[in-house]
């Protein structure tokens, strides 16, 4: 199975231009024989939207969204956008399209609202973490900060995910002598979850800058043994293509049967106990 990560530079607040970027990338990926093409978080809008969030929000039925879904023909496509719900609530969402239909929508659960981030001021929190079936196997999607909460990939792994897609808009920051520490932290998260759950983890990060903040790119794939096989370039646009061998999931899980031995009942019981304790204390 050939996967592509479209490491793009989205134009802030310009859905029209970003649609063009998406279509161009999809065309190129199709020529390269890519089976599944993944765009970064908010690929249709850019990241630090502030009040533009209101203007770039799209309903599922909107023509622009439908036109991209229609592109998922012979190739599965995952992209990010500002979703307007039927209740007019706005979500930082990821849409998985296959055979010109919506296969799944993930709404970002954990919205960073600290330091340089201000997401919960504009977006509603997503409320479900589910894996879903695709023609390549069971897939789970998380958006950026989601994966920094260990419970999110854990739930997806328990729910059967063999491939974890993580769409990000991660900036270069905190640079000292050690270099790009944010990337190192990302890779270690991707590798840990891949290895611990015996699944592929795919990291799709954007490039380009918004008001002086540079997104570093460096998209990558960690295999079910927790190894990074190949990484995309830093700071430059790229269609990053690599192969997934789904049989590696089977081999990794036989060699390291952590998923088999996981005691879900114990976890649920203990979490319920903790939840009760917290409520009483509250």
């Amino acid at each position: 199975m050939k996967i592509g990560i479209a490491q793009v530079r989205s134009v802030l607040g310009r859905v029209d231009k970003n649609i063009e970027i998406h279509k161009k990338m999809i065309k190129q990926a199709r020529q390269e024989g890519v089976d599944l093409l993944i765009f970064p978080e908010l690929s249709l809008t850019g990241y630090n939207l502030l009040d533009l969030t209101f203007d770039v929000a799209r309903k599922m039925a909107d023509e622009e969204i439908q036109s991209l879904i229609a592109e998922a023909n012979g190739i599965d496509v995952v992209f990010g956008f500002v979703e307007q719900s039927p209740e007019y609530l706005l979500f930082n969402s990821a849409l998985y399209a296959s055979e010109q239909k919506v296969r799944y929508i993930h709404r970002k659960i954990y919205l960073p609202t600290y330091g340089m981030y201000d997401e919960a001021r504009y977006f509603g929190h997503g409320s479900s973490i589910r894996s879903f079936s695709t023609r390549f196997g069971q897939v789970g999607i998380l958006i950026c900060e989601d994966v920094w909460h260990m419970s999110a990939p854990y739930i997806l792994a328990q729910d059967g995910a063999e491939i974890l897609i993580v769409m990000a808009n991660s900036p270069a920051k905190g640079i000292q002598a050690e270099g790009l520490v944010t990337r190192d932290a990302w890779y270690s998260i991707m590798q840990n979850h891949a290895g611990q759950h015996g699944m592929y983890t795919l990291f799709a990060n954007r490039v380009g800058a918004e008001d002086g903040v540079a997104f570093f790119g460096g998209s990558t794939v960690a295999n079910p043994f927790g190894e990074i096989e190949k990484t995309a370039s830093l700071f430059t646009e790229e269609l990053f293509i690599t192969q997934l061998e789904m049989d590696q999931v089977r081999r990794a899980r036989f060699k390291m049967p952590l998923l088999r031995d996981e005691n879900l009942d114990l976890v649920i019981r203990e979490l319920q106990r903790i939840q009760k304790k917290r409520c009483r204390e509250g």
Partner: protein
Amino acid sequence: MKMVEEHLEKAPFLRLDEELVTTILTTTLREEVEKVGFNRVILGLSGGIDSAVSLYLAVRAFGHDRVIAVRMPYKTSSPASLDDAQTAIDDTKVKALTLDITPQIDSYFEVRSEADALRRGNKMARERMSILYDLSAHYQALVIGTSNKTELLLGYGTQFGDAASAINPLGDLYKTQVRQLAAYLGVPEQIITKPPSADLWENQTDEGELGFTYLEVDSLLYYLVDQQYPREKLCSLFREELIDQVLTRIRKNQYKRVTPVILKVGSRTIGLDFRYLRDWGV
């Protein structure tokens, strides 16, 4: 370079991955200039280290034929600085202009002879920035800033003067880090080693006027701003007098780091609840 290495050995936490920082700054500078429709940049070149580093970064980002350096001496400006600026111009082969600001400054102060050195210095800084913005329109070149993080935090600069610019590549680098980058970028040694000076009056030096060294204050700022150490912890590392002096300067000069305060009347006030990045739509 010996001086730079000595400083970084004393304050290793200020050391940068210079290659990575250069990549980030040049990539982002190029994008932030080009996406708003400019192909060239312009900057004032004093002969000091900050403007030299901005120049060398700009040349790396755009090539020498798309960078314009402007020397704007006053009659009392140090001739050595003018020579140092020339050395940087010769080394980088950029287009350079020299405009003597003496006539307009002297004309203005002829009837304001009571003006002290600070007023005169500030007027000169604003005159220089006024010239840069005029030449910016003439050459269709965006004005690049030269203020480092140390002087921005301390407020050691002239509002609407040297502190102004369209894009500032140095604003997140402490002076000690600017020195490290200068050595890496090949800025002529005499520019790096000479005592920093605003050159607003004869024999002025930053460290003499401020009452502490840049290495000392950069170390304090790192722990204070970046690490957010509590006061007790700072007191175990630095002189209490220095801490107080620096804290007061940071607070008192906040006004220089923000856009003018707007008095709220309507429901969407610019900067308050009318929130957009500069990179809106680009």
